[in-house]
């Protein structure tokens, strides 16, 4: 058991398949097709500023919506009795196990111009509304797909808050509002942070949701990257540069969140899936 060398195969694997590929992204971003060093790719990313802004904006909105909806739910589940809690958790996890392409496809059916929602509204002589291929549809798709990633970490931290702590606050004369602001909220901050990362990162980098629900008018960073690698615009050097910019956005988001409090363990929340 004093053996360190059993990590050796993993070390080699890690260098080849984790470190090297990321270095390659950097290499491609700063070279031309022939391998000559250049800054052109990075400066070209500036042309796509509207797309970058749109991606960040959609992802922020989706994250905020998820947080607002999931926070009370996480609290309610954490205060539930054993069997009820288990059932609710299972109901939250169940959709996560379905492939997200299928979940997104389900919304295509509902949002179409002559889809179910418009037909339903038609009974009341309302609409039809143009819902698919709008920014709202893309954000809805993000909220629907990534909501469980917000609920689970919130639930995980809130279930650790002892009921007696809340009772003590109330016994000492604290109203519900101040119990919330001074006990529940501070204690649940690690879960809020994890949840924000878990929703923001896949939202800002998606290309499927925008493609399926956004039509052609809602191009996001992910679509741009995908187009450079697998689309007609084949240009891996530019694609790598856009990927680097996306990585910077994600790292900025994470370091911004870490300003609001100390380190926390990622392990538990990540393993919940």
């Amino acid at each position: 058991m004093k053996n360190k060398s059993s990590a050796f195969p993993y070390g080699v694997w890690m260098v080849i398949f984790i470190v090297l590929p990321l270095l390659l992204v950097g290499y491609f971003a700063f070279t031309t097709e022939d391998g000559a060093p250049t800054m052109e790719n990075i400066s070209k990313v500036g042309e796509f500023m509207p797309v970058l802004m749109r991606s960040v904006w959609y992802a922020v909105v989706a994250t905020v919506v998820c947080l607002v909806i999931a926070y009370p739910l996480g609290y309610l589940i954490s205060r539930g009795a054993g069997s009820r809690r288990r059932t609710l958790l299972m109901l939250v996890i169940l959709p996560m196990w379905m492939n997200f392409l299928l979940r997104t496809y389900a919304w295509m059916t509902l949002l179409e111009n002559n889809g179910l929602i418009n037909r339903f509204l038609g009974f009341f002589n309302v609409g039809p509304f143009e819902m698919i291929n709008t920014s709202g549809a893309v954000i809805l798709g993000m909220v629907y797909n990534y909501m469980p990633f917000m609920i689970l970490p919130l639930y995980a931290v809130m279930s650790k808050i002892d009921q007696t702590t809340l009772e003590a606050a109330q016994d000492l004369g604290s109203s519900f509002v101040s119990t919330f602001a001074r006990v529940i909220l501070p204690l649940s901050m690690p879960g809020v942070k994890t949840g924000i990362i878990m929703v923001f990162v896949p939202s800002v980098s998606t290309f499927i949701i925008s493609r399926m629900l956004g039509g052609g008018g809602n191009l996001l960073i992910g679509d741009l990257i995908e187009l450079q690698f697998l689309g007609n615009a084949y240009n891996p050097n530019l694609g790598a540069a856009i990927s680097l910019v996306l990585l910077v956005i994600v790292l900025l988001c994470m370091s911004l969140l870490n300003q609001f409090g100390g380190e926390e363990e990622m392990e538990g929340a990540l393993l919940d899936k």
Partner: protein
Amino acid sequence: MTNKLRWYAKTYIGFILAFFYIPILVMIAYSFNESKSRTFFTGFTLDWYNRLFTNDLIISSLQNTLIIAFAASITATVIGTAAAIGLYNMNKWLKSVMLNFTYLPIVNPEIITGVSFMLLFVSIQALIEGINTSFGAAIPMLEFGRATLILAHITFCLPYVILNVMPKLRQMDKNIYEAALDLGCNEWQAFYKIVVPDIMPGIIAGFLTSFTMSLDDFIISYFVTGPTSQTLPITIFSMTRRRVSPEINALSAIIFVVVLLVLLTLNFYDIRREKHMLKRMEVRSRA
């Protein structure tokens, strides 16, 4: 909580669950729809299920998905468990460096992981070609397809194995291992008689997580797949692009039922295990 508050809470939960499940249930309902329309329900049929089971592309991609998932998760479990044991014995500095790199594929946006794999495999191809032409060697070309998919899947599964096994190692009682050595076990015997059973729950959890991640993965696979080897999610994606394909509904219904059964079974085992534990605690407290 007062009754009124409780009612609000229930309504709230109800709304969210409706939001989660109505789209899925609508899809399942339309899987029995006679017409191709996604709006009008014209009559009951099992035709789409029939077509699904006779669709060669879907059957072959399901096979492919399973082969890749087994190959990737078994390899990742072996390498990852060995890695966790090695990391556990490392000094703090090296361990934290390696763990930080281990987190990378989880923290990174999946599209970047996918793109970086694609660049790696493209570069390897260029390298092989270079060697073959300049030295006259005949190294087989690494084609995009099953091989690249398995390599990529192993890589993104590894962190889940390590993160599942590490806590079990930390919880392990080192004294028992040392006692085994004192009682005449050699290191290898003590390892597989004491350590392996102790960390088994972590190994199994790591394997299952890897397996499901591999089955479900679309984004990374999308960048490393080739024309000859499709996984089920990639086939689903190409089906959704044809807009109207009711087979997807049937496929969703089947996947939903399978997932439901798996989760119910796991839940059932959890409850049973809890009951066992409670019983054992009761017995112990009486003794």
